[in-house]
C-alpha cells in the first residue's frame, strides 16, 4: 500500500479542465444532498405562493410548483432521494457484481458457466420493464427501489469485472499465489482486486448514471419515490401539467438530472488514463 501511495505523484494522474468541471458538479450535488434540510429557503411541503406554476422571481428563484410550493427547495431536497438512492443502489450492484465476477473468473469451471448464463439471462430483461414488474408485484418503497435498482445493474457489473479478472487470472503472479496454496478469497482480495480497481471504479460511475436515469424514469411513471417525498423524476411528474405553458417547475428538475448525469460522464471520460486502463 505504501508503495502505491508514493506513485500517486507520478505523471499521468492530473485531471484536465473538463474533468475538473465534471468533478465540481458532482461535488456540489453531493454537498447539496448532505446539507439539504439546512439550505432550503422554504419548508418543502409548505404552500408559499397563492399562484401556482409561478414564474422565476426574487422571492422564488426557480418559480413555484402546481400547488404553489417553492421549486428550488424541492429540488434541493430531491437531490437527497435521487443521489442517495442511486448511490446506495449502485454500491450494492457493483460490490455484488464485482465480487461474483472475480469469483467466477478465479474459480472457473461450472460455477463460472452457471453464473454467467444466469446473469446474462437477467440482463436480457429491459431495465425499465424489470422495474415495472417488481413494482407491480411488491409495491414501491425506498428499500424496494434500492434493491430492484441494485439487482438490475448487477449483471452489467458482473460481466465487466469478470472480463477484467479473466485477464489478470492468467498472470504469473496469480499462478505463483495459487502454487503457494492461497485460497480463493485471498486470490480475489490481494491479487485480482488491486489490479482491476481503477476500471471498476470508472465503471461504477457509469453505472451510477444508468441508475439515476432509471430511477428518474420510474419516478416519472409514478412507480418510484412516492408522495409526499419527491426525487427529481417525481418532481417532473407532478408538474407535467405546467409543460404546455413552459413553467419553470417542470424544466428545472429535468435540468438538475441532466447536470448530474452529464457531470458524472464528463468526470469519467476525463479520468486520468492510468486509472481507467490499469489492467492493460
Amino acid at each position, binding site marked *: 500500500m505504501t508503495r502505491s501511495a508514493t506513485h500517486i505523484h507520478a505523471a499521468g494522474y492530473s485531471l484536465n479542465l473538463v474533468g475538473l468541471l465534471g468533478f465540481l458538479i458532482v461535488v456540489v450535488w453531493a454537498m447539496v444532498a448532505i446539507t439539504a434540510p439546512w439550505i432550503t429557503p422554504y419548508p418543502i411541503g409548505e404552500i408559499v405562493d397563492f399562484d401556482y406554476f409561478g414564474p422565476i422571481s426574487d422571492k422564488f428563484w426557480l418559480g413555484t410548483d402546481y400547488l404553489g410550493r417553492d421549486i428550488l427547495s424541492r429540488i434541493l431536497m430531491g437531490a437527497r432521494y435521487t443521489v442517495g438512492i442511486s448511490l446506495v443502489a449502485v454500491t450494492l450492484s457493483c460490490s455484488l457484481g464485482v465480487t461474483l465476477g472475480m469469483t467466477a473468473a478465479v474459480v472457473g469451471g461450472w460455477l463460472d458457466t452457471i453464473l454467467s448464463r444466469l446473469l446474462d439471462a437477467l440482463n436480457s430483461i429491459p431495465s425499465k420493464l424489470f422495474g*415495472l414488474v417488481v413494482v407491480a408485484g*411488491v409495491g414501491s418503497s425506498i428499500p424496494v427501489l434500492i434493491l430492484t435498482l441494485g439487482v438490475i445493474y448487477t449483471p452489467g457489473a458482473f460481466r465487466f469485472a469478470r472480463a477484467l479478472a479473466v485477464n489478470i487470472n492468467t498472470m504469473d503472479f496469480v499462478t505463483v499465489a495459487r502454487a503457494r496454496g492461497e485460497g480463493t478469497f485471498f486470490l480475489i482480495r490481494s491479487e485480482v482486486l488491486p489490479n482491476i480497481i481503477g476500471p471498476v471504479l470508472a465503471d461504477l460511475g457509469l453505472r451510477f448514471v444508468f441508475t439515476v*436515469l432509471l430511477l428518474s*424514469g420510474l419516478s416519472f411513471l409514478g412507480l418510484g419515490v412516492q408522495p409526499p417525498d419527491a426525487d427529481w423524476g417525481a418532481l417532473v411528474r407532478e408538474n407535467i401539467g405546467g409543460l*404546455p405553458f413552459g413553467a419553470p417547475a417542470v424544466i428545472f428538475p429535468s435540468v438538475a438530472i441532466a447536470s448530474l448525469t452529464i457531470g458524472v460522464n464528463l468526470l469519467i471520460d476525463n479520468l486520468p488514463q492510468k486509472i481507467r486502463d490499469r489492467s492493460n
Partner: protein
Amino acid sequence: MNKHVLHLVLARLVIAVITLVIVSFTVFAATVLLPGDVVEILLGQAATPEAVAGLRAAMHLDDPAIWRFFRWLAGILTGNFGISYANNMPVADLIGPRLLNSLKLAGITTVFSVPIALSLGISAAMWRGSWFDRAVTVLSIGVVSVPEFMVATSAVLVFAVYLKWLPALSFANEIHSFGQMLRVYAMPVITLSFVISAQMIRMTRAAVIETLNTPYVEMALLKGASRARLVLRHALPNALGPIVNAVALSLSYLLGGVIIVETIFNYPGVAKLMVDAVSTRDLPLIQTCAMLFCMVYLLLITTADIIAIVSNPRLK
C-alpha cells in the same frame, strides 16, 4: 455459410431459448410469488373467508408455485394468456389492437430514424475531428445521458410551446386526414427517434472509424484516394456487419423509450396498457405484456449477435 458458423449461430439460438425460460421464470416469480393476496384484491369488500377459499381453489392458487409456473407457461405457449383481473376480458383481446398501435409507432420511428442516424454517423466518421463531427458527438452524448422523458418534454417545449407547430400533450382518437395523422404522430416519433438515433450514431461512427484504422485503408490513402472514396468504397463495405449489428441493438432502446413516450403522450399502445395495469395490479395483463417485451428485446439482441457472427470474415 460453413459448418463452424452454422454451429455458432445454432448455439446462439439455443442460448436465446434458455434465456427466455429463465426470463419467464423471473417474470412469473416477481409478480406471483411475492406478497399481496390477489384474491383479496379481486374480491375487495366481498372478501369473506368462504369466498376467498372458493376463488383460490378456482384459480388454482393453492397448488405449488412450480406447478402454477408450468401451467402459466403452457398457457402462454398455446396462446392462452389468461383473463384480465380489471375488466374480465381475455388478455389477448386487450393487447391485440394496442400491439398494432405500438408496432405502428415503432415502425414509423425506425423508417424515419435509421437513414438519418446512419448518414449522420458515417459522415461524422468521414470528417472525424471537424466541427461537424464534434457537434454530432456532443449532441448524441447529451441525448444518451439525459432521461427519455426529458427528451420528450424538451421536444414539447420547442415544437409546441415556443414554435407552436404541433399540439402539446393530447392524443386525438379520431384521425380524419393525412395531415392530422402527421401532426399526431410527429411528437412521439421525434422523441423516440432522438433516443434511438443517439445510440445508433455513436455505434455507427465507432464501427466506421475502426475500419478506417486498418492497413488497407491506409494503403488507399497513400495511393491518393479522396476522403469520400476512402470511407464509402474501402471502409464502409467492411463496416457493414458492425453497423447492422448497431442498428439492431439500438432498436432495442425503443422498448425502454416507448414506455415513457406512450405514457407522456397518452398514446394507446402496449406500454401504456402495461403502465396502467401496474397501477391496478392486473397481474395476467402485466405478465403477458412483460413477456411480450422481453421476447421482442431478446429477438433484437439475438439478431444483432447472429449478424455479428455471420458478418465476421475471420469465422469463414
